C-alpha cells in the first residue's frame, strides 16, 4: 500500500465537539504523573487565573488524534495503520484546554514524503472551542513503515 500524495492540502470538516470533563483531566494528569493541583482543584485553578481545572499540555493529543482519524482511516489515503509509528509531535498552546470547553479539531494534511521505503505523513490539527477560541495547534508526523508488498 502506498500513501496517497493527492491528499496533501486537504482539510477535513471539524471533528467534535468534545466536552472537556474535569474527571478526564484528572485521569490524564494522574496517568502522566502531574500532581499540579490546577488539574484537579478548581479553586487552585481559579487562583492561578483559569476558569476551571486545566488539561496537562499533552492532553491535546486526545482531541487532535480524534480529529485526524477521519484521514488516517480513509482507505483511499493509503495508510496501513498496523505499520504506523509516531515520529514527531509538536504542540503550540494558545490557551490551556479547560474543563467545560467544547473542543473542535480541524485536520489538514500538510505533507506526504517518502524516505528509505517509508512514508512520512504530517498532519496539523487546529483545536478551537465551539465559540471559535484558539486552543492548540498540534502538528504530528507519523511514519508508515514500508514492507513486503
Amino acid at each position, binding site marked *: 500500500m502506498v500513501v496517497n500524495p493527492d491528499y496533501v492540502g486537504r482539510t477535513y470538516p471539524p471533528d467534535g465537539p468534545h466536552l472537556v470533563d474535569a474527571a*478526564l483531566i484528572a*485521569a*490524564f*494528569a*494522574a*496517568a*502522566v*504523573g*502531574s*500532581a*499540579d*493541583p*490546577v*488539574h484537579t482543584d478548581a479553586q*487552585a485553578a481559579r487562583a*492561578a*487565573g*483559569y476558569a476551571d481545572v*486545566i488539561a*496537562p*499540555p*499533552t*492532553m491535546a*493529543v*486526545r482531541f487532535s*488524534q*480524534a480529529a485526524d482519524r477521519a484521514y488516517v482511516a480513509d482507505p483511499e489515503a493509503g495508510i496501513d495503520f*498496523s505499520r504506523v*509509528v*509516531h*515520529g*514527531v*509531535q*509538536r*504542540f*503550540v*498552546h494558545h490557551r*490551556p484546554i479547560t474543563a467545560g470547553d467544547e473542543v473542535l479539531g480541524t485536520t489538514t494534511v500538510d505533507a506526504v514524503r517518502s524516505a528509505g521505503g517509508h512514508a512520512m505523513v504530517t498532519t496539523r490539527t487546529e483545536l478551537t472551542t465551539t465559540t471559535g477560541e484558539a486552543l492548540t495547534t498540534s*502538528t504530528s508526523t507519523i511514519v508508515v513503515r514500508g514492507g513486503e508488498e
Partner: protein
Amino acid sequence: MASRALSTVAVGDVVGPVTVRVDRDALVAYADASGDQNPIHQDEAFARSVGLPDVIAHGMWTMGASASVVTDWAGDAGRVVEFGTRFTKPVVVPLAGNELVVQGVVKAVDAETGRVTVDVATTCQGEKVLGRCIAVVRLD
C-alpha cells in the same frame, strides 16, 4: 502553587533529574485517558507478534511524563506554550516495569516576553528515547 518567577531563571539552570516509574497498569491508565488503545501498549503477545521485543509505552505517554517534570519545575502546568519532540526509541515495559530519567536545561530566557526555552533529555536504561525535545514556558 505559584509559577516560578522569571527573574530567578537563568540560562544553564537544570530541571530535575526526576526518575519516573512506568508499568503496565500505568499504560492501561494512559490508554483510557488518552483514547489510544493500540494493543502494542498493553498486550505482550500482540506486541511480540508485530516484531516488538515486548510491550512498549505510548510515545505520547513518554512525552507527557516528560512534560510533567517541566510543569512541576515551572510551578503551573498552564505555562507551557510550546512543546515538541521526536520519538527516537521505544520505551520497553516488561512485566516488572521500567524507569525513565527526565532532565532539562534552560537554553534561553527572553526577559521581554517571559519565554523560557528548556531542552529536555529523557532516557531509559541510559539511552535517549526522545530527540530534540524542547519546551517553551512563559513566566512572569
